[in-house]
């Protein structure tokens, strides 16, 4: 990016700048499509090639922004749409981070086991990949069903825990893959050195493999945070959980004909939520800078 030369500014400033530019590009593209493509879309021989672009289906960016300031519903005393979205986002963000945490622990644990025992890698790797081909929607009712049967003394399984668990199911995958690659990244000379020093497997893990994995792990954690948000939103919808952004997207979609900007605002909020989650996790990376010599992503 020639506008923001590398090296001239700190990394996070550059990354934020690039993010804002990408957002701007998206807004410009959106408005350009509205300008160029006719309202009725492009239909050739009865087949719709480009979608309709009327204000009804693709509201202007500024009408979506303006809608944020107006009340959520027509009921008296209703909060602004922005307020409702922030409350719902906060609800979903907390569940996502809980799911992310569980996913990270599971992913790291799996990666450590797969690195340590070749047999475990051969046995588990296909299942790890396979796990991601099962549609979340099929999984959600099962998880809720199982969760409902758990009562351990004062502890009772709550609906949000099912949502977090489903989110962790998406988040663990990039972490497991990234961590495994990272744990396997030390060079032959480094591994030989630890062997020559008669370092135990556990010592080698903490002093060599974990630090070497950090450059692979930080991008994986960021990606895991974004997928946890997606997982939480889908899980909210498919388990019928109230209070989160997933629920709002569905209920606002029902009012799309009368109030087209409303569902778009909710979708935009979900996208921003993913970015915020990834950003928060990115802060973890700042603390690990020493280990990130030669990070690519």
């Amino acid at each position, binding site marked *: 990016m020639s506008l923001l030369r590398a090296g001239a500014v700190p990394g996070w400033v550059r990354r934020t700048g690039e993010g804002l530019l990408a957002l701007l590009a998206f807004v410009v593209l959106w408005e350009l499509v509205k300008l160029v493509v006719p309202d009725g879309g492009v239909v050739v021989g009865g087949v719709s090639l480009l979608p309709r672009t009327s204000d009804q289906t693709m509201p202007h960016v500024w009408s979506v922004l303006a809608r944020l300031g107006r009340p959520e519903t027509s009921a008296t005393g209703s909060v602004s749409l922005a307020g409702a979205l922030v409350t719902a986002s906060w609800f979903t963000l907390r569940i996502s981070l809980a799911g992310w945490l569980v996913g990270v622990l599971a992913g790291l644990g799996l990666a450590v086991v797969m690195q340590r025992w070749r047999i475990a890698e051969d046995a588990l790797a296909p299942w790890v990949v396979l796990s991601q081909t099962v549609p979340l929607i099929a999984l959600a009712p099962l998880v809720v069903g199982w969760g409902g049967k758990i009562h351990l003394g004062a502890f009772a399984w709550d609906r949000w825990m099912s949502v977090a668990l489903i989110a962790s199911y998406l988040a663990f995958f990039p972490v497991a893959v990234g961590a495994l690659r990272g744990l396997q990244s030390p060079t032959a000379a480094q591994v030989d*050195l630890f062997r020559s*020093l008669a370092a135990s497997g556990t010592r080698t893990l903490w002093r060599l493999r974990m630090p*070497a994995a950090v450059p692979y792990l930080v991008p994986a954690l960021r990606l895991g945070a974004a997928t946890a948000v997606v997982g939480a939103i889908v899980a909210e919808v498919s388990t019928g959980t109230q209070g989160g952004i997933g629920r709002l997207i569905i209920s606002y979609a029902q009012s799309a004909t009368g109030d087209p900007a409303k569902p778009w605002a909710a979708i935009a909020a979900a996208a921003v939520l993913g970015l915020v989650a990834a950003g928060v996790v990115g802060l973890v990376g700042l603390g690990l800078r020493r280990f990130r010599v030669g990070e690519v992503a």
Partner: protein
Amino acid sequence: MNAQAGVAVQAVGVGKVFTTRSGAVTALEDIDLTVAAGEFVSLIGPSGCGKSTLLRLVADLDSPSSGELTVFGTSARASREGQQYGIAFQQAGLLPWRTVRANIELPLELHGVGKRQRRARAEELLALVGLTDFAASFPHQLSGGMQQRVAIARSLAEQPSLLLMDEPFGALDEMTRERMQTELVRICAESGAAVLFVTHSIPEAVFLSDRVVVMSPRPGRISAVLDIGLPDGQARGESTREDAAFFANVTAVREALHGGSVADLRGVDVR
């Protein structure tokens, strides 16, 4: 065990066969070699003749396919676990997230040496390899030769009674190289450590060694062993390099290498 007390490394009929997808590679065959405690032995020979492999067997990073190998009278494995050797590899193998000082301290840290003692030892070693000013630098900020010197310092950290060094001075400029050679001679004299030293340089082997082991490839064998006798009782020093005996020994090693066909000489520095 008394008979073994003075022996650092003993190999009897050691062989190593690697099985690869394209078939078996005989890297070493029938190696008989004894390195006495405190003795400096160099391995020299064309590329691929198994020098690194032999060193790795002694270090218990690989195990021999045949023959007997003992280090200080015990198995190679027991001596690795007992931390009796220090090793410097052909590649430096530094940890990029550790400073130069922390890299040198690594062996001490892994073996539970206290912080204060580690510091003190690292300072000595930094001075020894001339990197005091770079103690807080990270490996990627150093040149290849400087990284190699860090690896050498690390191998010396625990004052081992056996040093295994695989072309440790290969990446150094001629001046640093000669200085490091002189230092190594001094360290060995002071600590009484035995050294098994791989090199491609004939003058280096002759300058450093009590004995030079000449190897030939395919399969890797020992083709000659030369005693480098110093004129009675004289210590090695800068003047040694200008000695008539030094040049005679260089010639002797070169001829031993030529004992094979000239085509086998690839990779050997015969300056």
